């Protein structure tokens, strides 16, 4: 029993990061109908920016990060993420013009590759220690399961982001963004600055990505080039599809579901001593295929 509580606790921790990455994906998709493969690197690059702030801008040394600076470093990371998001829209996405969704996915995959390569060249292909805001954990009442405080921090951050987004979509700019997504031409006629709204969505996605990057690096307590893309992106993609690709709530629910499913897959293979390598990747593929073949609009999405 306790192992399964542990599965849920770990699943929630990973799932919350999937959810944060997924929210950025869903936001950009909602606003511009583009699935952004570079969302993961919108997390890793700001996480490196945070690391720079905490180590006094030492790019390749072994300077240990100063945990006391984590809060200002996170603020810097979020700003870097937002800037990077807007830059990505202005420099790459807008000049692309009206192309098929697959072509824009390919373009953002190119951006992800570009950013990862820059990280490798600036920071070298090795792991750097990355602090958590709160260390240690506590016993879950009535069990021996230890819950990391970091899990609580991630869940709180996710809840805060969800509330902020919910409030945003009820405000005037939020409605303008929804209008842009629904019908850009009609929105423009109503005086909505369509281009600016799209840039705003990309900027917000960058800020969300930065948060996911800083907290995700905290999960492993280390940061390597390409970290968010290689560890969180594909489950986050699948979570977004599972939740319904344009649904914000769906992105979070899907993220949690994927977190628990991949953790459960690892546990099942260990418990029954099955000789199956890569259980999380297998689980992700199975979930993705099951959703696409049985309920392509996702759990909470409207039919496309």
């Amino acid at each position: 029993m306790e192992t399964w509580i542990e599965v849920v606790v770990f699943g929630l921790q990973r799932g919350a990061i999937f959810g944060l990455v997924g929210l950025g994906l869903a936001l950009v998709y909602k606003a511009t109908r583009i699935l952004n493969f570079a969302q993961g690197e919108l997390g890793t690059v700001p996480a490196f920016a945070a690391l720079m702030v905490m180590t006094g801008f030492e790019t390749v040394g072994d300077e240990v990060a100063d945990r006391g600076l984590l809060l200002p470093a996170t603020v810097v990371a979020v700003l870097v993420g937002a800037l990077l998001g807007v830059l990505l829209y202005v420099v790459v996405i807008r000049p692309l013009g009206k192309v098929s969704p697959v072509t824009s996915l390919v373009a953002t995959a190119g951006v992800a590759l570009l950013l990862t390569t820059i990280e490798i060249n600036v920071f070298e292909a090795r792991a750097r220690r990355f602090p958590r805001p709160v260390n240690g954990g506590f016993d879950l009442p009535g069990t021996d399961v230890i819950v990391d405080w970091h899990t609580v921090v991630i869940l709180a951050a996710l809840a805060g982001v969800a509330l902020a987004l919910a409030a945003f979509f009820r405000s005037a700019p939020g409605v303008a963004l929804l209008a842009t997504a629904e019908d850009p031409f009609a929105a423009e006629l109503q005086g909505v600055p369509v281009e600016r709204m799209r840039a705003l969505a990309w900027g917000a996605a960058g800020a969300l990505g930065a948060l996911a990057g800083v907290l995700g690096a905290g999960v492993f307590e280390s940061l390597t080039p390409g970290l968010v893309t290689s560890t969180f992106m594909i489950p986050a993609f699948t979570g977004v599809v599972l939740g319904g690709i344009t649904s914000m709530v769906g992105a979070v629910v899907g993220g949690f579901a994927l977190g628990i499913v991949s953790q459960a897959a690892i546990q099942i293979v260990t418990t029954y001593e099955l000789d199956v390598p890569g259980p999380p990747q297998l689980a992700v593929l199975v979930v993705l295929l099951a959703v696409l073949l049985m309920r392509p609009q996702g759990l909470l999405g409207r039919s496309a």
Partner: protein
Amino acid sequence: MSARLPRLAVLGLLLLLVLAIPQVVPGVYINVVARAAVYGIVALSMNVLVGYAGQASLGHAAFLGVGAFASGYALTEMGMPFGAALAVAALVGMAAALVLGGVALRVTGLYLALVTIAFGLFAQETLFNIRSLTGGGAGQPAARPSLFQGDVAYTYLCVGVLFLVILFDWRLTATRPGRAIQALRDDERVAASWGIDVTAHKLLAFVISGGIAGIGGGLFASIEQIVSKEDFGLSLSITFLLMTVVGGAGNRWGVVQGGILFAVLPTLLDRTHANFHVFPFTELTATWEPAIGAVLLLLTLTMFPGGIAQQQGALLSWLGGGPFTRDPDAHAPQGGGMGARP
């Protein structure tokens, strides 16, 4: 026709140049030439899916890996001769592609792209980790055929197979099924209204692509004579996509050049970094290679959607027997490209 002689002369010179390369390249780099030929084969495989049928593939390294491991298993565990192992690699590649093609019948566009990514990761982490088939972390040995033991000889074998695949691709686009596959790219419903069996031809495109990639994998396995799962990651799949798009999806000569370019780029950067002591080369080491590829991709998508083939449009048209003009109608059968509007 007086224009025919210079054209044949140029084609002959190009052929001689290609055949001379394995002779003149220094021994340490000969395997790069073999790899370039294999990447050319993979690019043609990608081209059938991306360029002709209009499907996305972000997990193509999985097909190369499936072929490489199948060939390695057939050679090492079953003691098959090289030709038979290559046939096994092609068949296994076809089978894997058929599975993915079945999914592509129900799932299209963006979602199919996601499935191919997840499939690639599944292949890398699960399939290629099954120790009894792939040798696990140690890798699967794959010996070369006795006739082509040497590096130069094996390189000629790879180049020869590349030419055979080009020939096959050329005949494919000239046949009815080949044209039917290309009709799918523009609009499946219109294709169906012309009486084209969409299901069968989509599956055919996947099977052909998987078969070519399987052969490429079989050849790839014996370049280093050992196959390990680290060779077939997501970044390789993205490289394959980059070389297809940068080469010019839909144009066989374009994608082959794209494949060769991305195969030699790391070595090229190493050499320029070591030998040229002026600015860009002093900073550009081989680790920058993916960044250069990515920038080429973004420039291609925003400025030249037809890739290398578009920029060589006039030359390719002339070599193919047409006039020396970039007018896209002059070589109409090879259009498309990633920029093709939906």
